[in-house]
């Protein structure tokens, strides 16, 4: 379990996170909020890249202040927003193997994990390609594979579908769904409310460095989101006016409406 208690954080004396409490298990939590509200800063605390100026962060009982990022990377995998910021090897295989090798695993185990990670993100057969030659969606999935290969229990994904077309976005979404069903806890940072609606079980809303909401998606979308610079997905509005109520997708709405007509 991830336990954040009374977390405060300041960059060079300017406080950007205040009084944050957060618990997380094997669930998909969407972390949302306006630009600059502190999402990335909060997420960087979970694997120890940033250490709280006040308060504490614990991952499965490990206090992040007492452990290095490398140690914590076995527990919390952090997939950065721009996948190109991590690629430096000549082949996809070596790229994915980098993390497990850093953990000091033997070559057999490294190879097993690379295979498994590439399969998890649907990139089997890409072992000998150059990371930079992949398409946007493939790069994003490769980035996820690089982190998965370290077998972390929790995953932080910072805007994983931003800039991807529908098809590539879809494949990333499916990857996330699969990882969740395999028992990973996932913290999903995003501005895409459709994505929140589709994937998240729980939503955490940050505003000006404070947590202003933490609860089930359904409840989240009943908030007045305009106050936080966010928009409601249209399908929800449709659900409201047609009297169906809360739906997660257009097909769900259509099904409900069709059922009505019978």
């Amino acid at each position, binding site marked *: 379990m991830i336990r954040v208690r009374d977390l405060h954080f300041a960059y060079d004396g300017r406080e950007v996170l205040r009084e944050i409490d957060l618990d997380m298990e094997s669930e998909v939590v969407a972390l949302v909020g306006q630009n600059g509200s502190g999402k990335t800063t909060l997420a960087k605390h979970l694997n120890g890249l940033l250490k709280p100026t006040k308060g504490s962060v614990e991952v499965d009982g490990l206090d992040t202040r007492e452990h290095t990022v490398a140690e914590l990377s076995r527990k919390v*995998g952090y997939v950065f927003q721009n996948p190109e*910021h991590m*690629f430096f090897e000549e082949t996809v295989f070596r790229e994915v193997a*980098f*993390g497990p090798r850093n953990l000091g695993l033997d070559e057999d185990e490294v190879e097993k994990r690379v295979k498994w990670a590439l399969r998890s993100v649907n990139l089997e057969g890409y072992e000998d390609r150059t990371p930079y030659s992949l398409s946007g969606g493939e790069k994003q999935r490769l980035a996820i594979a690089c*982190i998965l290969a*370290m077998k972390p229990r929790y995953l932080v994904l910072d805007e994983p579908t931003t800039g991807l077309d529908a098809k590539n976005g879809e494949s990333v979404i499916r990857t996330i769904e699969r990882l969740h069903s395999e028992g990973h806890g996932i913290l999903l940072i995003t501005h895409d409310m459709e994505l929140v609606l589709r994937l998240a079980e729980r939503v955490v809303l940050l505003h000006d460095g404070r947590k202003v909401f933490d609860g089930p998606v359904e409840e989240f979308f009943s908030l007045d989101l305009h106050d936080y610079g966010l928009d409601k997905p249209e399908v929800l509005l449709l659900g409201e006016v047609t009297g169906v109520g809360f739906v997660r997708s257009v097909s769900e709405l259509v099904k409900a409406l069709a059922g009505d007509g019978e």
Partner: protein
Amino acid sequence: MYPFYPQRDSLLSSLDPRVKIIGTALGIASIMLYNDPKVLLPLFLLFVLVGKYLGGISLREQLALMKPLLPVVIITIVVWPVIYKPRVMGLLFGITFAVRLLTFALLTFLLLMTTSQRELILGFVKLGIPYEFGLTISIALRYIPTLYMLSRNIMDAQKSRGWEIEKGSFITRARKMTAVLIPLLVASLKTAHELSIALESRGFGASKKRTFLYDIRMRRRDYIAMGIIVILFALSLYARYGLGIGHVELRY
């Protein structure tokens, strides 16, 4: 992040850019005259005070500007005595080089912190230096903070993959740096490419003769400042060659 040229009221920001450019150039020339830390260190402190009192740049800001150079400074001071014999001379070399580097950075920063990009380019052009040169310099400098943030971000990404630069011998560490240098290089090349498109699409280089919307004029205080700078530089020349101060003979 470096706050380049925040609008501020200080003597230095009110001076003509030409005066500041020449002042910076002569300041850099003066630190090249000496190799004795006994002269270089006070000179460095003098520039720090100039920045604080004439430039209105607090010591904290100056410190923040120089912090990224700390590793280079330490490496220089440690490495010179190891590779250069006799050791005392190596140490002297190391310190001299480190102080010169810091002063060089400080002077450049003072210029940038007290001059807007527009004035800087105009200053270069009025001094007869091609426009492209001024633009190149100011763009390059403008990207230092961006690159700094970028490299921090890349390091964070690699740390999340269990990468630890602190571990291992010098050679292993150098090899580990490729994990940061390659993504950094790729991202920089991309930025450079985008920048060139942006410049071209705004008609850069379309006409040989450029006109300027703004103009700069030397006023009385600029001439006075220029006079003071030239006199100080002449004095430092005299101190070095007339009086023989500040130079340690390298004999062994």
